[in-house]
């Protein structure tokens, strides 16, 4: 056993020194593929259609990116603990309606409406977390309940008609540009940085990975995994509601139909494309962000290329399939060499 471990560095040295470790590092960094794909797709589209890299289109993508990216981060935090949150999209839709209802029908100032909605979302996340940790319910089922109920609540409140006349604060948040950059995009970058800091630089973040990677080992090492899991569900729900603020601001009306529906699947897809393992314990923020960007580039690119939108999902599905296959092959090649 010792001989095999001792032999490895020797073999690396005999190979040409400079290149090998770099190539190996690239190979062992799971995010490389998706980041490279982002660059390739962007360059290709920009070369083909000059309007793609134009300011207007980039700003539009920035808005999209913020709303999908926020829930993708929330979703990924839950997946890292070994769970899944199906409610992120539906909860976003409900948050939009709740905020506009509090603001317009209940006459609350926008700040209070936002706060109240965040509280409700946080409480829901708490319920998810407790159901998963205390009652040992399957995360899939727990959040499926919320997914269904949240969509129902949206319909019940609005009866299908949108709520108009929301306060100016929302459009301030959702439509402002700071030096040509959409404010939502900046907020998304801030959230991504915080998430990165949490996961990479705090001991609680490391414990999240530990709990997702091997819950029993984490428990026996004295890590209170339940707390980490609960807090990730709460964060996920809060991020959904937060993304809801930006969506509401961008649209200007509390839309009753279609907002957030199916977005959880985009969020999961972005996470998986970005190298997050659905079993838990593996994945980094850079990959998640890159995964979201890639999906957005493709989505937007297909529109720019004026391809029939009915084909969009086929392409996105194929990209997802490609990503998970590539990830599997990479993991297997590492495992073989080890």
């Amino acid at each position, binding site marked *: 056993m010792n001989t095999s471990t001792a032999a490895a560095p020797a073999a*690396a040295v005999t190979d040409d020194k400079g290149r090998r470790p770099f190539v190996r590092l690239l190979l062992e960094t799971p995010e490389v593929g998706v980041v490279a794909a982002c660059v390739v797709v962007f360059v290709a589209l920009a070369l083909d259609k000059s309007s793609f890299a134009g300011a207007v289109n980039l700003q539009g993508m920035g808005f999209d990116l913020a709303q999908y990216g926020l829930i993708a981060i929330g979703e990924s935090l839950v997946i890292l603990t070994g769970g899944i949150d199906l409610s992120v999209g539906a909860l976003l839709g409900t948050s939009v309606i709740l905020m506009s209802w509090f603001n317009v029908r209940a006459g609350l100032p926008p700040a209070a409406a936002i706060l109240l909605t965040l509280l409700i979302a946080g409480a829901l996340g708490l319920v998810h977390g407790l159901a998963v940790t205390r009652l040992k319910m399957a995360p899939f089922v727990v959040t499926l309940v919320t997914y269904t109920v949240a969509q129902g609540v949206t319909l019940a409140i609005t009866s299908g008609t949108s709520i108009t006349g929301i306060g100016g604060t929302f459009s301030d948040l959702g439509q402002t540009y700071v030096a040509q950059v959409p404010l939502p995009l900046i907020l998304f970058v801030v959230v991504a940085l915080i998430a990165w800091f949490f996961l990479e*630089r705090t001991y609680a973040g490391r414990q999240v990975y*530990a709990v997702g990677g091997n819950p029993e080992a984490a428990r026996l090492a004295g890590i209170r995994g339940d707390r980490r899991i609960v807090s990730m569900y709460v964060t996920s729900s809060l991020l959904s509601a937060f993304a809801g603020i930006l969506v509401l601001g961008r649209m200007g009306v509390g839309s009753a139909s279609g907002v957030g529906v199916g977005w959880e699947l985009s969020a999961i897809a972005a996470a998986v494309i970005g190298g997050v393992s659905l079993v838990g314990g593996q994945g980094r923020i850079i990959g998640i962000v890159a995964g979201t960007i890639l999906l957005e580039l493709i989505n937007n690119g297909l529109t720019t290329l004026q391809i029939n939108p009915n084909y969009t999902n086929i392409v996105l599905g194929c990209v997802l399939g490609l990503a998970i296959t590539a990830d599997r092959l990479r993991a297997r090649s590492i495992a073989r060499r080890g």
Partner: protein
Amino acid sequence: MAAGSETAASLRDVTKAYGPVKVLDIPRLDLARGQIVAVVGENGAGKSTLMGVLSGTVTPSTGTIEVAGRPLPPGRPDHARELGVALVAQEFPLVGRLSVAENLLLGRRPARAAGGPLGRIVVDRPAMRAEARALLAEAGIEQVDVDRPVERYPVPVRQMIEIAKAWGHHPVVLILDEPTSSLGPIEAGRVLDLARRHAAAGGAVLFIGHRLDEVRAVADRIVVLRGGRLVADLCPRDATEERMIREMVGSDLARADLAPPSSVERSATLSVRGLTADGLGPVDLDVRAGEIVGVAGLMGSGRSRLLHTVMGAQPRTGGEVVLDGADFRPRHPADAVAAGIGLVPEDRKVQSLLPAHSVRWNVTLATLRRISRCGVLRPRRDKEHAARVIEDLGVRLRSPEQPISDLSGGNQQKAVFGRWLAARPKLLLLDEPTRGVDVGAKAEIYALIDEAAQDGLAVLVASSELEELLWICHRIVVMARGRIVADLPRDRFGKEVIMTAAAGTQPAAAPQGKAST
């Protein structure tokens, strides 16, 4: 009694090696029809491997096996079953959610199932139930509802169901792996009866046993394994318990001189009184600072449970634990870690490693809070800390960033030790500290344990390897059925004493531990 009977199964030159380690080496073994052959041996003597080879779950490195005159293709459990080998494993592969009847007929159709193409696809429930009931009746199992899910029955009943399931295959060779270890005396008697009936009907039984009295009572022939080799082939007349233990143990290991706990008047780090938990206790035990106390016992005797209960990983139902003079009631292992206890669990892969993550992450897992400031981990500090642990423990690796699953078992285990030693605990609980570790790394791990104890760490080490305990411990307690049945100081160490106490043939005579002094 076996005179003239034909051979049910024969092994020729069968060996099994994992890497350079030969775990089984049997030049010749024949199982005759009508005979119950008992196999005894210490943990790791090769009993399970022998069973595995015979039932097709383990592929032998060399050699051939014949069952009822037909060769057994290696490593094919389905073929072994077809040829008539049925195995009752210790951990029963029953499908908990399925009903008793479905489990009993798992993988085959009832003999009287409806014919035709439909009968091949559609489950014939009445026939299945009827056959399941017949099987249970044949095996002497009463009051089991064949429609209830198996998981609703307690372990002894499940064990009986498992035996009935094997019986249902009408095997030529019936292998029973410690079938009575989870059973009460009445059920155990039934199982032994069943084995006798099977032999009387012309089958062969391979019986793996830990309870030596039971082995003597049931077997027609007793085979002793030691270190993968067949060291004795006894008839029941010659096989006194003393003789069996002597053959199992071999010559006593030459004992190295161990430094006594450094200062004589050390205070007790851990003091346990009347501790009970599920399947444990009451247990009284003291471990002093600088002392290495071994916990010996057979499988299921409560060794791991004791450690897990002290750690707070298993709920305690009663009793008191005093740690370093203070009452200690952990509700989560995190409490134990905060109070200065570390646990190196038994199953490295399942209970201690983050297999996909780097060595660095793995060695810092228990000290994350300590090396962070206000909850923030600084990469430099993190890396330095990991590098120090790796160097102190002599873990051999390419880089601290490589996944820990790349390392050899010994280096993985050293990393886990490092994780805990870095936390500077007062009490270290070790469960099978050298399982799956090569000989060189073993010696290094022993040295680590010894060194830690010299520094005043109290160590409680549970192990199924007696040599290990004899080698490193100052004192050994022996457990049986969740209790401590013997407490041996170093001058009374001996494999035979321990085995005799652990087999628990004279439970009344064993001292209840001297911990009360």
